[in-house]
């Protein structure tokens, strides 16, 4: 379970270009559920996901992961927590160009130092499951948009995260691929993974697998009780 208490994030604080991205959000997210954060550009969806995923610290407020307060953890602990607990799927995929599909998938696990054979076999099994086994040796720039996203998904899953975070995952996909993506997310949810998605794509927040939609605007929750599907 993830709990946010009065979380606030301000960029460029005290400067003329100060920007309040998240303005005091309190929220409880249940484990094993699929939650979608919905809202227009600049509503604070991405920043909220960054805060939950330990990518940045809140300016004020606290975040709890399974009852443990994580906002005050020293940086190395926060990094370790991030790579063992969360898997990220970025809007632009952010795969490393000129690097093979397999190496892209394995990259997040390198700092953990497990044996090469075990890591490679796990990466290959994810690629197999996502229908990309034949492309393992291919460079990522040769892939289609849908294939690139599935590589990004395999990469997000390589360290066995409890929480999968996806930011606008269908922004570069057609309707068919978007539905395929949501079907995959439904599978992962069934397997017990908590899924948090930021999106303003109706194909995402209207998908059957979605348990909850949280509406955001100007860094705040639109209503204290977000709609539960």
């Amino acid at each position: 379970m993830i709990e946010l208490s009065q979380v606030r994030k301000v960029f460029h604080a005290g400067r003329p270009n100060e920007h309040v991205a998240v303005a005091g959000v309190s929220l409880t997210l249940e484990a094993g559920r699929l939650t979608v954060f919905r809202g227009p550009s600049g509503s604070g969806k991405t920043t909220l996901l960054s805060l939950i995923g330990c990518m940045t610290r809140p300016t004020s407020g606290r975040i709890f992961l399974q009852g443990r307060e994580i906002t005050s953890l020293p940086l190395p602990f926060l990094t370790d927590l991030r790579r063992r607990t969360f898997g990220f799927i970025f809007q632009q995929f952010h795969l490393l160009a000129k690097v093979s599909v397999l190496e892209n998938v394995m990259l997040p696990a390198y700092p953990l130092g497990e044996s090469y054979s075990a890591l490679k076999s796990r990466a290959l099994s994810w690629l197999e499951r996502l229908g990309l086994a034949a492309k393992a040796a291919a460079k990522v720039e040769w892939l289609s948009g849908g294939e690139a996203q599935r590589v990004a998904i395999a990469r997000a899953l390589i360290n066995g995260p409890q929480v999968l975070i996806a930011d606008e995952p269908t922004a570069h996909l057609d309707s068919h691929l978007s539905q395929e993506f949501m079907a995959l997310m439904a599978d992962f949810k069934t397997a017990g993974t908590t899924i948090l998605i930021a999106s303003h794509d109706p194909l995402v927040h209207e998908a059957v697998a979605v348990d909850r939609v949280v509406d955001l605007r100007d860094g705040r929750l639109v209503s204290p009780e977000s709609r539960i599907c």
Partner: protein
Amino acid sequence: MARRLHKQRYLLDFALSSLWRRKGKNLALLGVYSLLVFVLASVLFFTQALKREAALVLAASPELIVQKLAAGRHDLIPAAYAERLREIRGVSRVSGRLWGYYYDARVRANYTVMAPEEVAVPEQAVLVGAGIARGRHLSRGSTLTFQGYDGTPRAFQVRGVLSPESELLTADLVLMAAADVRRLFGLAEGLYTDLTVAVNNPREVATVAAKIQELLPDTRPILRDEIRRTYEAAFDWRAGILLSVFSGALLAFLIFAWDKAAGLSAEERREIGILKAMGWETGEVLQLKFWEGAVVSLTAFFMGTLAAYLHVFVAAAPLLAPVLQGWSVLYPRFRLTPFIGLFEVAILFFFTVVPYTAATIVPTWRAAGLEPDQVMRS
């Protein structure tokens, strides 16, 4: 422990693959870097080996030479001086040497003409150094003519060419009988060019030299150590001249390397952001960049050093020899005994590998300090 080793292996593997992804830039850098190490190491190896070679040759030369001075210039020394030197305690042997310089207008070079003590050369015959043999196209049986002090031509038959192993010091040497040296230079009997003095106890050489100076104030004792120091100073001076010539190239390389290593491209910045977003720590990104810098600089160091070794000790340093070894028009041609001073190599390593590796880490440290969420927002 195994996890740490695996982690470093992953980082090294990924560093190699990253270098290969930017192979155009990195191969150019490696080429220039290796060339610089090659030049520096060549000068270093060559100077060191020359000094060592000279020291080995000088080890067989007299410990003490006594020359007579007349108003500060060298003068011929009477044989009677030898008798007086023999009276000094600690002196085991004194012998007179006959030698002089002869200018050969045909090859525009100075020869050192000498009557050897150990080798008997028949009259009207000579042994010549390999440099002279090359310059005058001489071989055993050829005739070599010198013009005597009185203008009379004197012909000598070449009995042999001196061994190439000693060519560093014998390239311009002509050995002939003592009587021939006297006739060629017009030296009267009872006079020598200088005297060599052998001392029983090598630790007493300086004391004996001081006694000679006291006994014969118009002479100058020259210690073997002084000659060695003169050679070393000459080689060091030449190496210094050469290095100052190359310092422009060194500076150009430093600017080039700094630009390539310190300036992270937009692509590299993006990659660092992605790695951090995926859970890499700042320290791990720095280790990755350390491996990249270390691979480039160590490869350049080893390639440059190996090429310099082959250049100096196998190919006899064709690029440096004219500047570093020549003290005459007759350049010695010889193969140096491989000798590498570990201290000098360590200095070379420190001044080439360390700055480059540091230059790759500093900008990464700045870029890697950024919060990973910037990737989310890009």
